[in-house]
């Protein structure tokens, strides 16, 4: 059934559409609501995706973001959460196809905002041999704030080059994998080299740290892998999952 507010809601989301019959407003005043809806959400996307905006320019960004707002309006009332699907939209947005890395830059930027607001995690530090030995039988997971991003583009290089007032050059044009996470109160990036990227990917689906170590082709790599895990846990990218609960009844 078309209730009054349903009609109102549809009209707000239809720019240049007619205003609902039951609203009295001469002088095109209903359009204020249509403009507010799009412009406030475009502004919210601009706050989350400043580098995407910089890479395409203000006008292009405004047009692309407006298209996204009308196609995928927020489902959450927390505006900081808006834009989770923006990267996928950008990837499929034909006018932007000359910038194939744009969607991954959007993924990185959204991961940064998500990291900032994510839940805390009571740490289980891997300091000392005892702690490492105890962790061997545990599962290792991403910290609640962390996103693993594997890109065929230099996604972090592009982001960093656009933090300066005058965009710098990307140091090395090569695929990049990184974890975006919170370290204390700050947002951190932990880049992973080829070995680290492959091991972390295995680790996140393995039943335990030990099981992941056993998949290494050369046993002498286990030391390097352990050091990597210790570092990523210390920096807040990974966490040692709590032990599986012991069944109370047999």
């Amino acid at each position: 059934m078309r209730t009054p507010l349903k009609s109102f809601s549809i009209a707000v989301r239809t720019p240049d559409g007619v205003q609902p019959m039951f609203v009295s407003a001469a002088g095109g005043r209903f359009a204020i609501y249509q403009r507010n809806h799009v412009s406030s959400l475009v502004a919210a996307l601009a706050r989350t995706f400043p580098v995407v905006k910089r890479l395409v320019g203000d006008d292009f960004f405004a047009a692309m973001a407006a298209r996204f707002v009308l196609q995928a309006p927020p489902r959450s009332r927390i505006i900081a959460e808006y834009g989770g699907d923006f990267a996928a939209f950008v990837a499929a947005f034909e006018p932007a196809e000359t910038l194939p890395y744009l969607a991954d830059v959007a993924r990185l930027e959204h991961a940064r905002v998500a990291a900032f607001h994510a839940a805390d995690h009571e740490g289980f530090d891997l300091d000392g041999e005892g702690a490492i030995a105890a962790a061997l039988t545990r599962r290792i997971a991403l910290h609640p704030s962390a996103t693993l991003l594997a890109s065929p583009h230099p996604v972090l290089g592009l982001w960093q080059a656009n933090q300066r007032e005058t965009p710098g050059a990307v140091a090395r044009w090569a695929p990049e994998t990184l974890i975006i996470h919170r370290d204390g109160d700050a947002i951190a990036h932990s880049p992973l080299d080829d070995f680290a990227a492959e091991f972390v990917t295995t680790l996140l689906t393995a039943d335990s740290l030990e099981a992941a170590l056993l998949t290494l082709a050369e046993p002498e790599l286990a030391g390097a892998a352990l050091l990597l895990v210790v570092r990523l846990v210390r920096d807040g990218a990974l966490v040692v999952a709590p032990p599986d609960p012991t069944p109370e009844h047999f």
Partner: protein
Amino acid sequence: MTAVACPPGLPLSAGLGLHREHLDEVLAGAGQVSFLEIHAENFMSAGGPTLTLLDRLAALYPISLHGVALSLGGEEPLDAGHLHRLRRIIDRIAPASFSEHLAWSSHDGVYLNDLLPLAYDQASLLRVVEHVDQAQSALGMRLLLENPATYVSHRQSTWDEVDFLAEIARRSGCGLLLDINNVLVSSVNHGRDPRDYLQRFPLTLVGEIHLAGHEQDRDDEGQLLLVDTHGDAIAEPVWRLFAETIARSGPLPTLIERDNDIPSFAEMAAELTRAISILSQHQQD
């Protein structure tokens, strides 16, 4: 109506809406800020620095928790998840006041990110009273309901806005937040007299006053149109209406509100000082 606890209320002086741009000054206790107003939706993070900041602010100032997304005027049931997130903040910092709007912002699961007008008729009245009652029960505290700034009206409205707000308050036990800028904006846009509106407003129910800026525009037919942008200094007519209101009510907690084109802290502090001076002229012993 469900009996709910009445929060302690805000100090009878002037407060400031929180902005990231003024964080250093606010944390250093600069200016004559008697309370801080924060937007609840900005502090709904699951963890991290946002919540640490919330704790620090609440340790320094009485907090006015101001919601913008509860959609009390909506046709759909209140969002239980949103109420839960609000309750988490309330339990964490025990705010001196919680306020929301006579407006709606969600429909069919879509959040429109705006405060939209509802019809002032019997069906809306019953719905809003039920929603306010539910919210107050879920949050464990009385809320203040804010008068809206509107650009259009619903043809099926049968109630006057002041009477409508007063009746919601009478039936639900909620208090009211009087936004004097919204009174002026809506009055000009709908050809009403803001003084008449304010004279009929039940001031004894007012737990907080909002003062903000607006923009003057013309609609497509050349008619004067005021837009509630919160992006400008408080206009002189708003100051005059504020002084006249305070002369009748005595001092009330008064917020300097600004959401766009955030100026320097000093500029906000000057507006704060002006509000304090008007409040102190009508100090009741």
